């Protein structure tokens, strides 16, 4: 009989493969991008070499990309617009998803799975096909290529990412708490506002993260449904890599976006700690 592996070894066997995977496919590319954002673009796209091979060639490291970003208001404006779109999308998703998730969580157990399936059913068809379908809907309404179209598309695509974490949270609530609240004098609105809502904050937070962050980087929906002025950060990054083939500039935009998201998340976390304790 073989000896059982020690707990330490078992832990490494379990945690090892994903750690390795993330190290190779997340940490290393991220690092490459940080370095790339401090380099010059190559003559025919890509990156210029680190050491110059002929006189007058741009080579080595530079902060020029960042100087460009901070040198023109237009970039800050597009960032701000992206955050506004992301915030509006998140709010709209929350407003639509909360009643739906609550209805699913409070329906009979055997019907819940079917309802969750219906929520994720759109994923069964291709994302682009679904966005193009909105062109057909919005065209006759004279809304195509407007900010409204972008918002509608964003909300439509991201709604399931708000419904699922909310449902997962609400489904776990102990119904005895609502009985207790009612027994102690709370009407229907008070029961929601004082019990259900505060207990669902973790679900709201998870759904917000799952909607807000992908919307910031989204380029397909503004490109298909939006007009010329509806470009977001995602479109700029996509254009830098695939259009002008200026990798360093695209890398810089990506990093600025990451930093901006981290800053927002940090501020939100600090506000959360300062306020009342979430469940």
């Amino acid at each position: 009989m073989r000896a059982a592996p020690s707990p330490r070894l078992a832990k490494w066997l379990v945690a090892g493969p994903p750690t390795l995977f993330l190290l190779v496919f997340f940490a290393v590319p991220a690092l490459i991008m940080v370095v790339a954002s401090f380099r010059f673009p190559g003559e025919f796209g890509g990156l210029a070499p680190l050491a110059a091979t002929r006189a007058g060639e741009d080579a080595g490291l530079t902060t020029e990309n960042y100087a460009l970003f901070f040198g023109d208001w237009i970039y800050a404006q597009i960032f701000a617009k992206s955050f506004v779109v992301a915030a509006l999308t998140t709010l709209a998703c929350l407003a639509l998803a909360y009643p739906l998730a609550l209805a699913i969580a409070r329906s009979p157990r055997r019907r819940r799975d079917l309802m969750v399936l219906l929520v994720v059913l759109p994923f069964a068809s291709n994302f682009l096909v679904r966005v193009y379908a909105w062109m057909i809907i919005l065209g006759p309404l004279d809304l195509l290529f407007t900010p409204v179209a972008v918002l509608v598309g964003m909300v439509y695509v991201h709604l399931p990412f708000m419904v699922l974490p909310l449902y997962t949270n609400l489904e776990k609530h102990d119904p005895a708490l609502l009985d207790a609240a009612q027994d102690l004098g709370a009407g229907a609105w008070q029961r929601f506002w004082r019990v259900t809502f505060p207990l669902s904050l973790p679900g709201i937070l998870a759904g917000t993260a799952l909607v807000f962050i992908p919307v910031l980087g989204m380029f397909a929906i503004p490109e298909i449904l939006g007009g010329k002025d509806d470009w977001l950060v995602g479109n700029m990054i996509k254009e830098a890599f695939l259009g002008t083939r200026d990798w360093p500039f695209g890398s810089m935009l990506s990093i600025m976006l990451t930093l901006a998201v981290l800053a927002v998340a940090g501020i939100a976390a600090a506000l959360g700690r300062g306020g009342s304790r979430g469940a």
Partner: protein
Amino acid sequence: MPLLEIRQVTRRFGALAAVDDVSLAIEAGEFFTLLGPSGCGKTTLLRMIAGFDAPDAGAILLEGRDLAGTPPEARPVHTVFQSYALFPHMTVAQNVAFPLRMAKRPAAEIERRVGEALEQVHLEAFAKRYPDELSGGQKQRVGLARGLVNRPRLLLLDEPLGALDAKLREEMQLELINLQRDVGVTFVFVTHSQPEALALSHRIAVMDRGRVEQVDTPPQLYGHPRNRFVASFIGRCNVVEVTVSASGGAALALDAGRLGALVAPARPDLAPGTRGALAVRPEQVRIGPQGTVADAENRFDGVVRDLLYVGDVTTYVVELAAGVRVEALLANAAPGRARVFEAGQPVAVGWSHDAGVFLAD
């Protein structure tokens, strides 16, 4: 006028009557217990008093006013739940303040009354803790404070001690008795544990299959059960099948078949030939070496088959000549106790003519 009156209340779930034509009157200041096995309808009745369920027939009146149509949040009745049902996102103080905030009391009054309520349950030091930082007994005390802080006319307690371990349960029983006496609020307590019901209650309603079998004080219930269900549910009991042979004299004469003749407390109302059972509590049955117990009117020889030693007392299961088994309880600190009997040992058991209760079929 009783504080709470339950008038011929029936609640059906499909073909099953969970509560079947129940009538009860609970007085102000009482510690009243609904006792019965699981599924007897006691929790359904409690939910109807709280307002979470409505009777199919009958009425529930609080201070003479019919509660039908009054939702739970508008009833001056609060509940302490078995699962505690404390709000996990609120501190102990916020939990206790909840009913006061719902009643829109001024902030200063809320603070004062929360402080008083926490003091009553000895949790002043825990006001800022969250429920998941409390032990089971502390959570239960928060539940009590939250239920009492708003001075309800009635506090309903749904097996509140069910989740606690034995030692803590006993401590909480004493605390409950003191708390109820101090605050003077009427308690309606639901439990399936008969020792708990006997220890806590002023009066007990014993329920079985949706019906109330008997309502009495604990000593009356224990000493004078009205039927076999109550006799066997409240405490341990020896039940001997008998027929009344004569009821006219100073004692009731019974025929116990192969066991022979028995005498029991007089019941002039019974006609000879009435069939039933004689219930005798194990502590009323005396046990001694063969040849003793001579002064007991009902006296038999037998053999010890089993014994259950629990420290303070020992229960002996004695098989009598006719194959009838009788349990006898002997306090191990009884003065003059000669010895502990062993399994297989021949003994004499007996009980006096004034012990036992006749239960008609």
